[in-house]
């Protein structure tokens, strides 16, 4: 049966580590998750620019406004 659609659209994403680098990171031991995932956050400059231009100033106020009874 022919596939009616191609489910996943590929896009290019920059900043991938080589598998060798990643293997090294793994071999050196499973440590703090934040430390291992920290230095791969590249390629997002235009997204960061977008968000900085629209950021609401009072983050605390924004977060605390969202209080709603549970559902389900």
């Amino acid at each position: 049966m022919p596939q009616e659609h191609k489910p996943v659209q590929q896009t290019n994403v920059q900043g991938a580590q080589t598998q060798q680098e990643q293997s090294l990171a793994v071999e050196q031991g499973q440590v703090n998750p934040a430390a291992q995932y920290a230095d791969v956050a590249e390629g997002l400059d235009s997204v960061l620019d977008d968000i900085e231009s629209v950021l609401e100033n009072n983050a605390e106020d924004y977060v605390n406004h969202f209080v709603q009874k549970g559902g389900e």
Partner: protein
Amino acid sequence: MSRSESHAMDMTLRRIFGIETEYGISVTDADRDPDPGTVAMIMFRPIVAASRSTNTYTPNGSRLYVDVGSHPEYATAEARRPIDALRLDAAGESTMRSLAMQAQDLLREQYGPRTRIHVYKNNQDSAGHSFGCHENYLVRRDISLSLLGEQLIPFLVTRQLYTGAGTWSADGQFQLSQRADFLDDAISASTTRSRPMINTRDEPHADSDMYRRLHVILGDSNRSQIATWMKLTCTHLVLCILEYCTHHCLDTGLAGMALADPGKAIKTVSHDPHGTAVLDMADGSRKCALEIQNTYLRVADRFVRDHGDDIALNIADAPECLELWGKALDAVHFSDITELATWVDWAAKYRFVQSMQLRHPNLSVARIRQFDLDYHDVANGHIFDSLVSHAQMRTMLTESDVERARTTPPSDTRAALRGAFVTAANNAPGCTWSADWTHVSASVPGAKSREAEMLDPFDSQPSDDYKKVMELVSGAAD
């Protein structure tokens, strides 16, 4: 399980998929604060004007309503394929956005011109209240609850490695799942007092001798289209294995997967982005989430190779699912957040926050939690849309696919009948109508009211009763 045993259509593998999504509401920058109940009622004004109720069905056959706790909720119409369920779920997001933006205009008249409405497709508020994204799978009744507990729950507990939406708690701690902390038992009948992972409230909306509705309530709401599609498709494949093997008295190959304590395991997995934390198994051994997921992937891969001709597997796009599944587990294994972030919600958010922290090393927890919420805001959020527009988040649907899905039901389920009925009834002046998952009824002034039952979710063919309902409604529109 040889290929010769499975012919073009094995009825044990047919499926109906559905997703019920509760949305959270907040308003910021108002002169005074309206409560969520007021905001929900303002959002639903156009619905009440059209259907005299906050509980209605849409032209694509889905249900749109206000649920407990003033949460706007959208339950997708019956879909035979995960991609159709995804389309309908995305149509739900789009519907919520439209309702929210109309409500924002009204709110600004009363609460000041800067008032902004936020409609979060997430699973918890800032005070720690939780709400759900429930998946429904129609399964054969011969599959036992104990089998689901032993061989489905371990899959569901560990799939958060790629289906988790991710979140930061008030103390800044990150975890993969927004739901893990709120779940208790593996299987139970309640959803509000205790929160099980699978709910046994058995409302198949179908032939109850043959089917039960499997109600999975442990999952996070996903913004990523691929994550939504993957959670349905992977779960479908695991259910196919369990159902087929039960039906044909075969070994599933998944007997060793039972967890000693699923409630504890789901929290352990949620706090471990590497999938390597050790979980206690029911047989006394220990395995990590990655090992468990790799076993399910291997068994699913074998099953698809043995049953590749089967229509129910083909329409679920199993090969594409298996390929993405394998890539995701590799990416977790190699800590490749960049690969994961192209479609895994927790990774996309995590990578975004890490990048922001490189620019602003002293980012406050409140700011991070604001980013977290913004990612899920389908009304006035920025981060998710920006990731998509800068090709950092992959998608499966175009905007026009989603708009079309708002008015187009799947053509191969009962939803086609319900959707056509709702569209016709909305266009018939003076027509009073009602619908639920298994009925439609209509009355017009001066004529006998009509109703029709639709008990088989797989059946899109109109019955004589249904044709009479449609004649009545169409006559009123002339």
